[in-house]
């Protein structure tokens, strides 16, 4: 009846992209409320023990903390739009530069973990769902639950204690000291994302060094999401295997393997894609712990450092960046979803 209801793919994408603005606005407002309004006076919290009252007041004035809240709110929004997150209290660095220098490491870690989780989780989930209530299903589910249940730092701890040694893998940092030094010296840090820079440099020693450093943290973080993927894929397979169109395909005599692949697996992965966006958020959260455990020079590690310093400006800036990243990822996921599932567009 509603054949060409209201929309096409471009229209859907446009709508979805426009929806980003209010989403970001809401999230910025939340960040502002939580970090600027709630705590009261960040300056004295951070520097109260280092500066006298007059100096504190000067800092407050300079940062605009003496302005009315509404003005501060407007200033905050404007500064975010200009990608200006201010300067950290504790070490006087431009927050944007902190993000630039450390964001790359976080990005490479999460992406590597994500790839590992996908490569391991999705096939295992498919097998478990297809052969429900068999021995492989039980084992895979147990693996999934355990890999989710084991805290990142505990897995990291076990890996560091029992795996790193025998395999000769480093347990700390994103690269060896030489790699970092020579990359910097030779001006090879073009993108500020080490993983990309070493590949751009083409030097196999650097590449090996960086990949070795990446291995354990990425596996640790990947395992966390892997359990989630297994569960998700399995449940969706179970549901699509029961769906009417699968039975209808069987009734048409489509070969069982084709039914499984084309009807059950493919359809089961669609909702999975939607949830992947949310899993990325989980990854970013997990990255904080992974980075701390492995001394990975990423944003999460920095964030924890600044939190311990009570550096509100830095925390606010980093949190804002994370927030915007999450919103953007969710939009990308939605658009990908619309490309795959024709029903979404309408």
């Amino acid at each position, binding site marked *: 009846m509603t054949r060409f209801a209201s929309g096409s793919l471009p229209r859907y994408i446009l709508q979805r992209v426009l929806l980003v603005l209010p989403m970001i606005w809401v999230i910025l407002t939340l960040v502002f409320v939580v970090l600027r309004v709630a705590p009261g006076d960040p300056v004295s919290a951070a520097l109260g023990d280092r500066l006298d009252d007059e100096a504190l007041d000067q800092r407050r004035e300079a940062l*605009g903390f003496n302005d009315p809240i509404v003005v501060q709110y407007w200033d905050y929004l404007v500064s975010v739009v*200009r990608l200006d997150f201010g300067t950290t209290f504790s070490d006087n660095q431009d927050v944007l530069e902190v993000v630039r220098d450390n964001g790359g490491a976080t990005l490479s870690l999460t992406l590597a973990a994500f790839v590992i989780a996908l490569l391991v989780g999705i096939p295992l989930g498919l097998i478990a769902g297809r052969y429900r209530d068999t021995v492989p299903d039980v084992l895979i589910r147990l693996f999934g639950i355990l890999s989710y249940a084991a805290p990142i730092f505990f897995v990291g701890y076990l890996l560091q204690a029992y795996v790193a040694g025998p395999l000769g893998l480093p347990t700390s940092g994103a690269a060896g000291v030489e790699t970092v030094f020579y990359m910097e010296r030779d001006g090879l840090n073009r993108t500020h994302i080490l993983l990309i820079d070493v590949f751009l440099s083409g030097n196999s020693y650097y590449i090996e060094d960086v990949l070795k450093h990446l291995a354990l943290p990425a596996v640790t973080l990947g395992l966390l999401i892997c359990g989630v993927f297994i569960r998700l894929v399995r449940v969706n397979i179970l549901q699509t295997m029961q769906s009417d169109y699968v039975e209808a395909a069987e009734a048409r005599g489509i070969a069982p393997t084709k039914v499984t692949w084309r009807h059950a697996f493919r359809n089961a992965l669609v909702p999975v894609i939607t949830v992947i966006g949310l899993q990325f958020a989980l990854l970013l959260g997990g990255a904080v712990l992974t980075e701390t455990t492995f001394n990975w020079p990423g944003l999460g590690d920095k964030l924890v450092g600044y939190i311990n310093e009570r550096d509100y400006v830095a925390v606010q800036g980093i949190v804002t960046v994370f927030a915007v990243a999450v919103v953007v990822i969710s939009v990308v996921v939605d658009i990908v979803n619309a490309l795959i599932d024709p029903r979404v567009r309408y």
Partner: protein
Amino acid sequence: MAWPSTEPIVDIRDLSVHYGLRGGSLARLIGSDAGTVKAVDGINLTLRRGEVVGLVGESGSGKSTLGRALLGLAPATEGSIEFEGQDLADLSGRRLRALRRDIQMVFQDPSAALNPAMTVEEAVGDALRVHGMRSASERRTKVIDALERVGLSPVELFLEKYPRDLSGGQKQRVVLARAIITGPSVLVADEPISMLDMSVRAKILQLMLDLKQDLGLTYVYITHDLASAKFFCDRIAIMYLGRVVEIGPTEEIFANPRHPYTKALLRAIPDPDPGRQLPRDLPRGEVPDAASPPFGCAFHPRCNEATPICGWESRDLRALIEGHWTRRSAEEYAGERSIVGDLDHLDKPTTGATIGSAGSAETRVFLDRVRAEKPDEPIWGGIDAINDVGSGVRVQFREGVDPALRRAGEVQVACVLYPDEPTGVEAAESDRDRPPPPPEPVSAGINRRTVGLTVVGLIAALLPFVAFAGITREFVQNGVLTSYSRINVLGILGGVVAFGCGWALLTKGGGAERAPWWKAVGVVVALLGVLQFLHGSSLLVAVSPCQSERVDSTWCR
């Protein structure tokens, strides 16, 4: 017996119930409508005490909405419903709820109509509880009485049961018990038997007849099944797409159906009489989308007796051509398709349809071929002119007539085949007929969306300039692009928004009839958007990591 009396108990005047359609996620966020569905569109109906009025129609006919509107469950957009002289629209929420003691409802799916977490006693008793009967023992007495009345005996077996322990027929009895326990005078029965098994339907129908007899009820019987309506109803209103198309005494409707839709329904009922022949002249197609109903008479695209003035339009042309193609071979189809091109744009209803992509002459030849195949199609009479435009033709249809309900013999019919018969028995009733509504308004060129798009587009295009006036000035004075390390994100986003608005104006602006000058506005807004985008991103391009020092302290605190 005094009833059915002539005393009206419910009086529905010009009732319309419109729903806003949900749009996309953005529209949902803003709360704007993506269009309206006229579920009920200007209906007049009087219920007399003690009679059974049938509302019959297919899905989307608005029969259920009309039934729900009687209880105030569907808010009236226009018009009034008077129950015993009280207008439902005037009642406050509390008084309206109190009124529901007097008008009750029975639902189609008895399994869904009962709360799965309530026992039979709680479910039936809750009707009393919400109307303030606090004492549990008093309630129990009344519940037992009601359950006995609907035949659920021995009552003790049923009181503690949950709906899942009951059969379909038993559940429907519980629903009936809940409906009669407050002592209503009107019962709206929305397809009460259609979800039940064949052998139970007659039982429930019998029960409803008994209840009517015992309690003096007035029924509104909503159904798609003409057979049960024929048996059960005193009067029948045939509904189609939110309108009553024929209304009158049951015998007359069945003995002498007048509206083509009524005739079609009667022909289509499967009948267990083995001597009956399968009907050959069924209406084609399906109930159209209520969000944009056909022009003129809503039934004309499916009608076997349609006339040239029934409201022909572009979508009918598409159906005609596609129907033609189902009878062509693959090669013929491929050839003709290349002449006509894509037909999707015909889905936007208009009386001037442009088709053809391979030249006007070819398109005319094609149309002639279609016509030769089925020369009797009434749509041909509805075409005013076929003019050459560009590489195709523009088919201009006649303005259609939207027929109003008019008296025809003992019934009233809304069909151009039955023009007015002013001297009716109930002249007073026909006086209150709706005047024929004005033809579908050809849009004045401006609608809310167009204006909204323009405003939003202009703001999005200009705001970044205004908000950053200081920056742009600075930028000119310094004359050095690279002195700014900040990306003007607002500019980029504003540009995108403005471009989107402009594009939407360009393609969809100005309502149904696209005035060229809205296209101009669209172009301007879109261009502004592009400009804004370039402005925002030119700063982006100029960013160089080595020169990222901040030059300006006035806007970078």
